[in-house]
């Protein structure tokens, strides 16, 4: 049976520390931009921690929600790409072929989660940070769309290793950078096709909701939370 990678994020455990964001940047060679460019909305965070505030002062509670590509089964970004740069791969991932992207940015408009990011300029790293680039991940050039890959380089490596040993990937042995970095283990990653995997069981949890589920994109990330997320909570 092919893999079907999914994720569960426990919002009750999330402290909003943003270790996942940092780990993601380091793992995936995501460029950082200057303060000026940041003010112009050119920052790229494949993973971001959204903050929503509840209640009135002084009774304020902050809710955190890490948002990354939801790897939708019915992804709106894929249909609109005129060059197949955004496509569904055999593991159910929303893959992005950087070399095939011509930069129409239509996928980013169609994405209801706004988790796609565009290289407005060629990426630059101040020395000596250019020496810390991850050799397993390509660096994207100007004019190309990019987004969370579920650390596809790790998935590929784990699949190759498992195939050499003629076994399936052990649940929990494969983690994307964000899950690995999370100090509260709020992020769980695994194979949704394996009914005994942690992520598959969490996906069935009564605490589970999907982000913007009613839009029908069938996202593969389950958010776990005691209370369901209400529209009225957002401000």
């Amino acid at each position, binding site marked *: 049976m092919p893999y079907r990678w999914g994720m569960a994020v426990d919002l009750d455990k999330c402290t909003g520390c943003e270790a996942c964001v940092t780990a993601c940047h380091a793992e995936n060679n995501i460029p950082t931009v200057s303060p000026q*460019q940041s003010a*112009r*909305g*050119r*920052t*790229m965070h494949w993973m*971001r921690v*959204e*903050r*929503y505030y509840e209640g009135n002062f002084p009774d304020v509670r902050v809710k955190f929600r890490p*948002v990354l590509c939801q790897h939708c089964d019915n992804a*709106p970004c894929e*249909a*609109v*790409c*005129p*060059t*197949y740069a955004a496509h569904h791969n055999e593991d159910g991932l929303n893959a992005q072929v950087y070399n*095939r*992207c*011509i*930069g*129409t*940015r*239509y996928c*980013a*408009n*169609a994405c*209801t*989660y*706004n988790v796609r*990011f*565009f*290289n*407005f*300029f*060629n990426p630059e790293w101040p020395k000596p940070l250019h020496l810390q680039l991850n050799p397993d991940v390509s660096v994207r050039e*100007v*004019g*190309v*769309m990019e987004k969370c890959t579920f650390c596809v380089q790790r998935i590929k490596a784990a699949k190759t290793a498992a195939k050499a040993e003629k076994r399936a990937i052990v649940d929990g042995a494969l983690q994307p950078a964000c899950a690995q970095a999370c100090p509260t283990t709020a992020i769980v990653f695994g194979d949704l096709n394996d009914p005994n995997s942690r992520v598959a069981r969490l996906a069935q949890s009564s605490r589970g909701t999907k*982000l*913007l589920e009613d*839009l029908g*994109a069938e996202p593969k990330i389950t958010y776990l939370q005691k209370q369901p997320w209400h*529209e009225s909570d*957002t*401000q």
Partner: protein
Amino acid sequence: MNRTLNKPLADDLVRPLFNTSVWFYAVVLAAGTVVACGALAWGFQLWYGIGLSGKRWPTFWALYLTNFVFWIGISHAGTLISAILRLVNATWRRPVTRCAEVITVFALMIGAMFPIIHLGRPWLAFWLFPYPSAREIWPNFRSPLAWDFFAINTYLTGSVLFLFLPMIPDFALVRDRSTGWRRKVYGTLSFGWRGTTKQWNRLEMAMQIMAIAILPVAVSVHTIVSFDFSMANVPMWHSTIFGPYFVAGAIFSGIAGLIIAMAALRKALHLEHYLLPMHFENLGKLLLLMSILWAYFVFNERLTVWYGNEPHEMAVFWATQRGQYAPLYWTMVVGNFVLPMAILTNSKTRTILGCVIASCGVVVGMWLERFLIVVPSLTHKQLPYSWGTFSPTPVELFITAATFAAMLLLYTLFAKFVPIISIWELKAGDFVHAPQAGVVTADPHRIDAAPASSSPGAAS
């Protein structure tokens, strides 16, 4: 031959081709400079990256797409109006058709630039084309952008034919009046036109076919442009009304563009005897009709959103109605509805000047309408955390200004090298040229009156 009797008419209309006023050079120089600035701005953008424009996360489409939709809209002036007027055989159309058809071709050429200008990697734009490659990779035919490619190319091909066919007899006429290089060039362009009955019949037949064929193409092309938006699940884009709404808006802005172009031609080339107040009056009425139709569509779109009260859509609704985009929104309403209603409902103000003022309001209003469709939705998508904003940069503004200058430049050059009023069509109608008013002749240029041997404009 009656050609001598018709000579003043033809003389008058080919005059701009042989005499050049200093204004021609002034306009070409001024418009050319602005176009060059725009080209330079695009060069910078190609060199440094699309980041030189104001686009940002999450406003990934902005002015370039606005210009794209706007210019494709303007292009509906021509072909559509001229095709309808031809099919219903409205005789007053005769001096108007070519001015309109030229707008179509040039506006399409300008509009079709923008999907390429806005690309992140424009040098790979050919990947949008369905060419057989060794790797057997085709464009994604599910993408509305691929549909755009086919729709716009079909429309461009059709409208070039539609423009070119009725120019053939006029090219022949210019050929026969010129010497040297002109004779060669116009001789080639006239495809050996001799004006035989057979040729006239074929031309009429071809025009009839093109006029019928171009109508569904014109309607479909702007519907497909609207699909770029309505196919995506973005608040206030995902709407069934977009197809007809875009087409109505396109015809609306097209008529406005046509009125402005005609008024400019009338002044610049002294065509007061051909482009009469009556033409402006008729087009003004059409503009008024389209203004009411446009308002009807906007009312429908806004009312259903407001009544449905869906939170994601309401965010966009209020942002345009009374939020940060409200000044632009209400300017649009004034330009597109209040101004045309105030000026064009009164026959006293439905003069040439009145029509031009109303048209300027409509052009501004329709550009804003396209902007207000593209941008506020993208800045107010479903997740409030990722709401954004947009402000244009000089590069974008230069390129936008250059498109208007390019239209002026191309139009000026066209009017310099081609009779901007279809001479044979004018003769074919019962048009009485002022200097020869009262002289009624059997016109050899009318098919029903043309003996087999007559060759209009080619009798030398």
